[in-house]
């Protein structure tokens, strides 16, 4: 049995993740499962070997995720898509997801200290007009009932985002309401 050492604060450090129910053993994966994993290397991850129990859903989810975050031919810069993911995770309370996407936000924005303030102070941290608008929109989107409204759109526009970039914020923030719920409920992070 592996020992779980759960983190008690939000961090940009690399964390592990331990499943509470049985992932598929690597030796049992078939071509149908590898299609679901999309990247074969994901067979090494406990999280993806758990989700691959439903390969069709995992494949579609993975391809949705990749296009929302990695397709930077146009639209919102990658750093701000990652900021939306990190802010959503901070607000929902997913320490694991926040760690991954805070690191990405730092890498792409070169604003590691600001990203750390989001983690340390929470979603109310003052990160400048543009980042504040993205964080606030993500938080409103994460609330249930959903609180995202015309004021969020107006604020994003004032901060310089056009409609295509606003759709990237909507997609990125909405997607992390999917990801957070899986990571939080099927297992736990470990240092």
């Amino acid at each position, binding site marked *: 049995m592996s020992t779980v050492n759960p*983190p008690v604060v939000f961090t940009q450090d690399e964390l592990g993740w331990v499943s509470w129910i049985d992932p598929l053993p690597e030796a049992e994966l078939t071509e149908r499962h590898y299609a679901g994993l999309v990247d074969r290397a994901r067979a090494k991850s406990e999280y993806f070997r758990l*989700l691959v129990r*439903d390969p069709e859903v995992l494949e579609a989810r993975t*391809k949705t995720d990749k*296009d929302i975050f990695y397709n930077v031919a146009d639209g919102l810069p990658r750093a701000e898509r990652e900021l939306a993911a990190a802010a959503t995770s901070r607000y929902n309370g997913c320490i694991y997801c926040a760690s991954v996407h805070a690191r990405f936000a730092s890498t792409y924005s070169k604003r590691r200290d600001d990203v750390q303030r989001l983690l340390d102070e929470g979603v109310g941290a003052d990160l400048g007009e543009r980042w504040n608008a993205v964080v606030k929109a993500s938080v409103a989107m994460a609330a249930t009932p959903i609180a995202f409204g015309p004021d*969020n759109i107006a604020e994003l526009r004032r901060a310089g985002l056009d409609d295509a970039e606003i*759709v990237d914020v909507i997609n990125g923030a909405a997607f992390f309401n*999917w990801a957070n*719920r899986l990571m939080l*409920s099927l297992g736990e992070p470990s240092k």
Partner: protein
Amino acid sequence: MGTQDIIDTLAGIEPGSTLDAIRARRLQARENAQKSYLALFEPIDAGDFPLAERAAVAAFVTGLHGESPVAAFYRDKLAATTDGAALVEAIKAEIEHGKTSGPYGAYPAGPLSIESKAGLVYRVSAERKPVLGERLVAALEHAHLLVFHPRDAASADMKALLASGWSTTGIVTFSQLVAFLSFQVRVVSGLRTLAAASTSEARS
């Protein structure tokens, strides 16, 4: 040709509109959000999670987010599903019984403890347990946790589902379904809000 795009339909996005063109720039995401919907609601094999249960959980989850075209869509889907129609009234009543505001929940003991926020721990009403059955009772209780306070989830919740007749694979698909709907209902809401903001701006 395939089914109509479900997010476009629910968000009221017309072919040739500005938002149609913007969504077309993320074609892989658009197509795979649709494939996710199909994989969850028209699966190759529904053995571990029958279709009526999927529709019941979907109606419950989207209803907990408040009345919307998405909630109406899944309510109608439940009514149209074999063995689902008999559950419509019970689900409607449980949505009212479970409504609250999220996200809330506890953090691990430490510096984040001051951010812990208590809230409703929902349990299905005793009177509706017979019509829903053990599997769905466990599913609705877990779905409510996922919707409103996912950070409270613990390994004991997995054991509760397993003890109520859920397989490990069934739990994975069920978790994906609730999590996917949390995404879908937000994308639709966000796109509708953006479309409305653009229309009112054009008018002013």
